[in-house]
Protein backbone atom coordinates (compact mmCIF):
# COMPACT_ATOMS: atom_id res chain seq x y z
CA UNK A 1 0.00 0.00 0.00
CA UNK A 2 2.62 2.47 1.09
CA UNK A 3 4.81 1.38 -1.76
CA UNK A 4 2.01 2.21 -4.18
CA UNK A 5 1.68 5.68 -2.74
CA UNK A 6 5.41 6.26 -2.95
CA UNK A 7 5.49 4.96 -6.48
CA UNK A 8 2.57 7.16 -7.48
CA UNK A 9 4.21 10.17 -5.92
CA UNK A 10 7.46 9.41 -7.70
CA UNK A 11 5.62 9.04 -10.98
CA UNK A 12 3.86 12.38 -10.46
CA UNK A 13 7.18 14.00 -9.67
CA UNK A 14 8.73 12.44 -12.74
CA UNK A 15 5.85 13.65 -14.86
CA UNK A 16 6.03 17.13 -13.42
CA UNK A 17 9.77 17.23 -13.97
CA UNK A 18 9.23 15.92 -17.47
CA UNK A 19 6.62 18.56 -18.22
CA UNK A 20 8.77 21.30 -16.81
CA UNK A 21 11.74 20.38 -18.97
CA UNK A 22 9.89 19.58 -22.18
CA UNK A 23 9.24 22.46 -24.50
CA UNK A 24 5.60 22.94 -25.33
CA UNK A 25 4.45 22.08 -28.82
CA UNK A 26 4.17 25.79 -29.64
CA UNK A 27 7.69 26.42 -28.37
CA UNK A 28 9.06 23.57 -30.46
CA UNK A 29 7.19 24.92 -33.49
CA UNK A 30 8.65 28.39 -32.98
CA UNK A 31 12.15 26.98 -32.52
CA UNK A 32 11.77 24.86 -35.67
CA UNK A 33 10.65 27.83 -37.78
CA UNK A 34 13.56 29.92 -36.53
CA UNK A 35 16.01 27.08 -37.18
CA UNK A 36 14.77 26.52 -40.73
CA UNK A 37 15.53 30.15 -41.54
CA UNK A 38 19.16 29.91 -40.38
CA UNK A 39 20.03 26.42 -41.59
CA UNK A 40 19.68 26.75 -45.36
CA UNK A 41 21.38 28.88 -47.97
CA UNK A 42 20.09 29.97 -51.36
CA UNK A 43 21.60 27.81 -54.07
CA UNK A 44 21.01 27.84 -57.82
CA UNK A 45 17.34 28.36 -58.55
CA UNK A 46 16.32 27.51 -54.97
CA UNK A 47 16.05 30.72 -52.97
CA UNK A 48 15.24 30.90 -49.27
CA UNK A 49 11.69 31.92 -50.22
CA UNK A 50 11.10 28.22 -50.88
CA UNK A 51 10.99 27.77 -47.12
CA UNK A 52 7.89 29.98 -46.94
CA UNK A 53 4.79 27.85 -46.80
CA UNK A 54 1.47 28.56 -48.43
CA UNK A 55 -1.76 27.75 -46.63
CA UNK A 56 -1.84 24.15 -47.85
CA UNK A 57 1.76 23.46 -46.83
CA UNK A 58 1.37 25.06 -43.41
CA UNK A 59 -1.85 23.19 -42.68
CA UNK A 60 -0.53 19.83 -43.87
CA UNK A 61 2.71 20.27 -41.90
CA UNK A 62 0.63 20.88 -38.82
CA UNK A 63 -1.56 17.80 -39.33
CA UNK A 64 0.77 14.96 -40.28
CA UNK A 65 -1.96 12.39 -39.64
CA UNK A 66 -4.48 14.04 -41.93
CA UNK A 67 -6.74 17.05 -41.78
CA UNK A 68 -10.04 17.06 -39.92
CA UNK A 69 -12.87 16.52 -42.45
CA UNK A 70 -14.17 20.10 -42.39
CA UNK A 71 -10.73 21.60 -42.99
CA UNK A 72 -10.02 19.06 -45.70
CA UNK A 73 -13.23 19.88 -47.56
CA UNK A 74 -12.57 23.58 -47.36
CA UNK A 75 -9.02 23.14 -48.62
CA UNK A 76 -10.07 20.87 -51.49
CA UNK A 77 -12.75 23.34 -52.59
CA UNK A 78 -10.31 26.24 -52.60
CA UNK A 79 -7.69 24.24 -54.49
CA UNK A 80 -10.24 23.04 -57.07
CA UNK A 81 -10.81 26.66 -58.00
CA UNK A 82 -7.11 27.04 -58.92
CA UNK A 83 -7.16 24.51 -61.76
CA UNK A 84 -6.65 26.12 -65.18
CA UNK A 85 -7.55 24.01 -68.19
CA UNK A 86 -5.80 24.68 -71.54
CA UNK A 87 -7.50 27.43 -73.54
CA UNK A 88 -7.41 25.17 -76.60
CA UNK A 89 -9.63 22.68 -74.79
CA UNK A 90 -7.26 19.88 -75.87
CA UNK A 91 -6.56 17.71 -72.83
CA UNK A 92 -4.86 14.74 -74.46
CA UNK A 93 -1.41 15.15 -75.98
CA UNK A 94 1.14 12.54 -77.07
CA UNK A 95 1.63 9.54 -74.81
CA UNK A 96 5.23 9.08 -76.05
CA UNK A 97 6.08 12.52 -74.73
CA UNK A 98 4.17 11.61 -71.60
CA UNK A 99 6.32 8.51 -71.07
CA UNK A 100 9.48 10.63 -71.27
CA UNK A 101 8.08 13.13 -68.78
CA UNK A 102 7.01 10.29 -66.46
CA UNK A 103 10.55 8.87 -66.53
CA UNK A 104 12.38 12.13 -65.89
CA UNK A 105 13.08 13.13 -62.32
CA UNK A 106 14.92 16.37 -62.94
CA UNK A 107 13.68 19.90 -62.41
CA UNK A 108 13.48 22.49 -59.63
CA UNK A 109 16.41 21.07 -57.65
CA UNK A 110 19.09 23.61 -56.81
CA UNK A 111 21.53 21.84 -59.10
CA UNK A 112 19.11 21.61 -62.06
CA UNK A 113 19.34 23.90 -65.06
CA UNK A 114 16.20 26.07 -64.77
CA UNK A 115 16.12 26.64 -68.54
CA UNK A 116 15.45 22.95 -69.16
CA UNK A 117 11.95 21.50 -68.73
CA UNK A 118 11.16 19.59 -65.55
CA UNK A 119 10.10 15.98 -65.51
CA UNK A 120 7.11 14.56 -63.69
CA UNK A 121 9.03 11.63 -62.14
CA UNK A 122 5.76 9.65 -62.09
CA UNK A 123 7.57 6.28 -61.95
CA UNK A 124 9.18 7.28 -58.67
CA UNK A 125 5.77 6.70 -57.05
CA UNK A 126 3.48 4.93 -59.56
CA UNK A 127 3.44 1.87 -61.73
CA UNK A 128 2.49 2.90 -65.28
CA UNK A 129 3.81 1.07 -68.36
CA UNK A 130 4.36 -2.59 -67.47
CA UNK A 131 7.70 -2.59 -69.32
CA UNK A 132 9.18 -0.37 -66.64
CA UNK A 133 10.13 -2.61 -63.72
CA UNK A 134 11.54 0.18 -61.63
CA UNK A 135 8.51 1.95 -60.21
CA UNK A 136 7.60 3.18 -56.77
CA UNK A 137 4.59 2.50 -54.59
CA UNK A 138 4.01 5.77 -52.75
CA UNK A 139 1.06 6.32 -55.08
CA UNK A 140 -1.35 3.71 -56.48
CA UNK A 141 -0.62 1.66 -59.59
CA UNK A 142 -1.87 3.47 -62.69
CA UNK A 143 -1.39 0.49 -64.99
CA UNK A 144 -4.58 0.16 -67.12
CA UNK A 145 -5.80 3.49 -65.82
CA UNK A 146 -7.44 4.42 -69.13
CA UNK A 147 -8.54 0.91 -70.03
CA UNK A 148 -10.61 0.86 -66.86
CA UNK A 149 -12.05 4.34 -67.18
CA UNK A 150 -12.32 5.18 -70.88
CA UNK A 151 -11.55 8.55 -72.40
CA UNK A 152 -14.73 10.51 -71.73
CA UNK A 153 -14.46 14.25 -71.28
CA UNK A 154 -15.13 13.85 -67.56
CA UNK A 155 -12.26 11.39 -67.16
CA UNK A 156 -9.90 13.63 -69.14
CA UNK A 157 -10.80 16.61 -67.00
CA UNK A 158 -10.33 14.56 -63.86
CA UNK A 159 -6.90 13.24 -64.95
CA UNK A 160 -5.75 16.69 -66.02
CA UNK A 161 -7.05 18.31 -62.83
CA UNK A 162 -5.55 15.64 -60.60
CA UNK A 163 -2.08 16.21 -62.08
CA UNK A 164 -2.54 19.98 -62.10
CA UNK A 165 -3.55 20.11 -58.44
CA UNK A 166 -4.07 16.89 -56.49
CA UNK A 167 -4.91 18.90 -53.36
CA UNK A 168 -8.23 19.64 -55.05
CA UNK A 169 -9.22 15.98 -54.76
CA UNK A 170 -7.33 14.74 -51.73
CA UNK A 171 -6.21 17.22 -49.09
CA UNK A 172 -2.56 16.83 -48.07
CA UNK A 173 -1.91 14.32 -50.82
CA UNK A 174 1.75 13.35 -51.17
CA UNK A 175 1.58 14.23 -54.85
CA UNK A 176 3.02 17.56 -56.03
CA UNK A 177 0.74 20.21 -57.52
CA UNK A 178 2.42 19.96 -60.92
CA UNK A 179 0.36 22.65 -62.67
CA UNK A 180 -0.49 24.93 -59.79
CA UNK A 181 3.13 25.11 -58.62
CA UNK A 182 4.54 25.53 -62.12
CA UNK A 183 6.53 22.29 -62.23
CA UNK A 184 5.01 21.14 -65.52
CA UNK A 185 3.50 23.21 -68.32
CA UNK A 186 -0.13 22.77 -69.40
CA UNK A 187 1.12 21.01 -72.53
CA UNK A 188 3.29 18.60 -70.54
CA UNK A 189 0.28 17.71 -68.42
CA UNK A 190 -1.75 16.90 -71.54
CA UNK A 191 1.02 14.46 -72.55
CA UNK A 192 0.71 12.75 -69.18
CA UNK A 193 -3.08 12.60 -69.61
CA UNK A 194 -2.42 10.80 -72.90
CA UNK A 195 -0.01 8.40 -71.21
CA UNK A 196 -2.80 7.53 -68.77
CA UNK A 197 -5.79 7.46 -71.13
CA UNK A 198 -4.73 6.89 -74.74
CA UNK A 199 -5.73 3.36 -75.77
CA UNK A 200 -2.38 3.15 -77.63
CA UNK A 201 -0.39 4.05 -74.54
CA UNK A 202 1.59 1.13 -73.03
CA UNK A 203 -0.22 1.92 -69.78
CA UNK A 204 -3.38 0.47 -71.35
CA UNK A 205 -1.82 -2.52 -73.09
Amino acid sequence: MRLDVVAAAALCAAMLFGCATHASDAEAERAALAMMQTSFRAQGQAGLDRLDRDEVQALCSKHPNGLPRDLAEKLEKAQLATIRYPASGKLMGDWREGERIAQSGVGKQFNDDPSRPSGGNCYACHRLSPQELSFGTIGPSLYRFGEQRGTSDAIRRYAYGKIYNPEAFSACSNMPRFGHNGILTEEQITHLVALLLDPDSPVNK
Partner: protein
Amino acid sequence: MDIKRREVLKAGSGAGVLALAAAAGLMKPGEALAQEWNKAAFSTKSFADTVKALGGGGSTESRDIQITAPDIAENGAVVPISIESRLAKTQAIAIMIEKNPNTLSANFEIPAGTDPFVTTRVKMGETSNVYALVKADGKYYHAVKEIKVTIGGCGG
Protein backbone atom coordinates in the same frame (compact mmCIF):
# COMPACT_ATOMS: atom_id res chain seq x y z
CA MET B 1 61.81 -8.31 -61.25
CA ASP B 2 63.17 -11.21 -63.22
CA ILE B 3 60.07 -13.22 -62.55
CA LYS B 4 57.85 -10.47 -63.86
CA ARG B 5 59.95 -10.11 -66.98
CA ARG B 6 59.78 -13.74 -67.72
CA GLU B 7 56.00 -13.50 -67.41
CA VAL B 8 55.90 -10.64 -69.83
CA LEU B 9 57.92 -12.64 -72.29
CA LYS B 10 55.51 -15.52 -71.96
CA ALA B 11 52.44 -13.35 -72.26
CA GLY B 12 51.24 -14.14 -75.76
CA SER B 13 50.59 -11.46 -78.38
CA GLY B 14 52.91 -8.51 -78.31
CA ALA B 15 55.51 -10.38 -76.32
CA GLY B 16 58.02 -10.20 -79.14
CA VAL B 17 57.81 -6.44 -79.29
CA LEU B 18 58.13 -6.21 -75.53
CA ALA B 19 61.14 -8.49 -75.53
CA LEU B 20 62.80 -6.31 -78.13
CA ALA B 21 61.96 -3.17 -76.18
CA ALA B 22 63.34 -4.68 -73.01
CA ALA B 23 66.45 -5.91 -74.74
CA ALA B 24 67.06 -2.49 -76.26
CA GLY B 25 66.83 -0.97 -72.78
CA LEU B 26 63.79 1.13 -73.76
CA MET B 27 61.83 -0.09 -70.74
CA LYS B 28 62.79 0.48 -67.17
CA PRO B 29 62.31 -2.44 -64.82
CA GLY B 30 58.78 -2.33 -63.42
CA GLU B 31 57.25 -0.87 -66.54
CA ALA B 32 56.93 -4.27 -68.08
CA LEU B 33 53.62 -4.95 -66.37
CA ALA B 34 52.06 -1.71 -67.60
CA GLN B 35 52.96 -2.58 -71.17
CA GLU B 36 51.28 -5.94 -71.11
CA TRP B 37 47.80 -4.73 -71.94
CA ASN B 38 45.88 -5.94 -74.95
CA LYS B 39 44.67 -2.64 -76.34
CA ALA B 40 43.12 -4.28 -79.38
CA ALA B 41 40.94 -6.54 -77.22
CA PHE B 42 39.77 -3.66 -75.03
CA SER B 43 38.77 -1.63 -78.11
CA THR B 44 36.35 -4.12 -79.62
CA LYS B 45 32.62 -3.57 -79.88
CA SER B 46 31.19 -7.06 -80.19
CA PHE B 47 31.50 -10.47 -78.60
CA ALA B 48 32.86 -12.10 -81.79
CA ASP B 49 35.51 -9.42 -82.32
CA THR B 50 36.62 -9.68 -78.70
CA VAL B 51 37.06 -13.44 -78.96
CA LYS B 52 39.23 -12.85 -82.03
CA ALA B 53 41.25 -10.10 -80.37
CA LEU B 54 41.92 -12.42 -77.44
CA GLY B 55 43.31 -15.00 -79.83
CA GLY B 56 40.34 -17.31 -80.37
CA GLY B 57 39.00 -18.42 -83.74
CA GLY B 58 35.50 -18.73 -82.28
CA SER B 59 33.72 -19.89 -79.18
CA THR B 60 31.30 -22.65 -78.20
CA GLU B 61 28.52 -22.18 -75.68
CA SER B 62 29.12 -24.36 -72.64
CA ARG B 63 27.03 -25.43 -69.67
CA ASP B 64 30.21 -25.92 -67.69
CA ILE B 65 30.54 -22.21 -67.18
CA GLN B 66 28.43 -20.66 -64.48
CA ILE B 67 27.71 -16.96 -64.22
CA THR B 68 26.47 -15.88 -60.80
CA ALA B 69 24.98 -12.39 -60.89
CA PRO B 70 21.61 -10.83 -60.12
CA ASP B 71 19.04 -10.80 -62.96
CA ILE B 72 18.37 -7.18 -62.08
CA ALA B 73 20.98 -4.69 -60.92
CA GLU B 74 19.83 -1.93 -58.63
CA ASN B 75 22.60 0.24 -60.01
CA GLY B 76 24.69 -0.12 -63.16
CA ALA B 77 27.81 1.42 -61.65
CA VAL B 78 28.43 -1.70 -59.60
CA VAL B 79 27.19 -5.06 -60.84
CA PRO B 80 28.59 -8.00 -58.84
CA ILE B 81 29.50 -10.97 -60.99
CA SER B 82 31.13 -14.35 -60.32
CA ILE B 83 32.27 -16.76 -62.99
CA GLU B 84 33.14 -20.37 -62.34
CA SER B 85 34.36 -22.84 -64.94
CA ARG B 86 34.17 -26.61 -64.67
CA LEU B 87 36.09 -27.06 -67.92
CA ALA B 88 39.34 -28.97 -67.54
CA LYS B 89 42.54 -26.95 -67.92
CA THR B 90 40.84 -23.58 -67.63
CA GLN B 91 43.49 -20.98 -68.45
CA ALA B 92 41.60 -17.70 -68.59
CA ILE B 93 38.23 -16.14 -67.77
CA ALA B 94 37.05 -12.98 -69.53
CA ILE B 95 33.99 -10.84 -68.81
CA MET B 96 32.23 -9.07 -71.67
CA ILE B 97 29.27 -6.73 -71.69
CA GLU B 98 27.62 -6.55 -75.08
CA LYS B 99 26.14 -3.05 -74.82
CA ASN B 100 28.98 -1.25 -73.08
CA PRO B 101 30.97 1.21 -75.25
CA ASN B 102 33.70 -1.45 -75.37
CA THR B 103 32.76 -5.07 -74.93
CA LEU B 104 35.64 -6.44 -72.86
CA SER B 105 35.65 -5.61 -69.15
CA ALA B 106 38.36 -7.89 -67.84
CA ASN B 107 40.48 -10.90 -68.66
CA PHE B 108 41.81 -13.03 -65.79
CA GLU B 109 44.62 -15.52 -66.39
CA ILE B 110 44.21 -18.58 -64.21
CA PRO B 111 47.46 -20.46 -63.58
CA ALA B 112 47.48 -24.14 -62.52
CA GLY B 113 46.72 -24.33 -58.78
CA THR B 114 44.27 -21.42 -58.87
CA ASP B 115 40.55 -22.26 -58.92
CA PRO B 116 38.81 -21.49 -62.22
CA PHE B 117 36.67 -18.97 -60.37
CA VAL B 118 36.68 -15.22 -59.99
CA THR B 119 34.36 -12.59 -58.53
CA THR B 120 34.48 -8.91 -59.36
CA ARG B 121 32.22 -5.93 -60.04
CA VAL B 122 31.57 -4.30 -63.38
CA LYS B 123 29.91 -1.19 -64.74
CA MET B 124 26.96 -1.59 -67.07
CA GLY B 125 25.62 1.38 -69.02
CA GLU B 126 22.30 -0.31 -69.70
CA THR B 127 20.49 -3.65 -69.69
CA SER B 128 22.68 -6.07 -71.63
CA ASN B 129 23.86 -9.59 -72.25
CA VAL B 130 26.92 -10.43 -70.18
CA TYR B 131 29.30 -13.06 -71.54
CA ALA B 132 31.76 -15.19 -69.64
CA LEU B 133 34.45 -16.38 -72.05
CA VAL B 134 36.64 -19.22 -70.84
CA LYS B 135 39.85 -20.40 -72.45
CA ALA B 136 40.38 -24.07 -71.57
CA ASP B 137 43.06 -26.31 -73.02
CA GLY B 138 43.62 -23.76 -75.77
CA LYS B 139 39.94 -23.59 -76.85
CA TYR B 140 37.28 -20.96 -76.18
CA TYR B 141 33.89 -21.52 -74.54
CA HIS B 142 31.26 -19.15 -73.26
CA ALA B 143 28.09 -18.67 -71.25
CA VAL B 144 25.72 -15.73 -71.45
CA LYS B 145 23.24 -14.11 -69.09
CA GLU B 146 21.09 -11.03 -69.44
CA ILE B 147 21.33 -8.51 -66.61
CA LYS B 148 18.73 -5.77 -66.42
CA VAL B 149 19.92 -2.40 -65.18
CA THR B 150 17.26 -0.31 -63.46
CA ILE B 151 16.81 3.38 -62.85
CA GLY B 152 16.80 4.03 -59.14
CA GLY B 153 16.29 6.56 -56.41
CA CYS B 154 14.49 9.85 -56.38
CA GLY B 155 15.34 10.55 -59.99
CA GLY B 156 17.57 13.58 -59.89
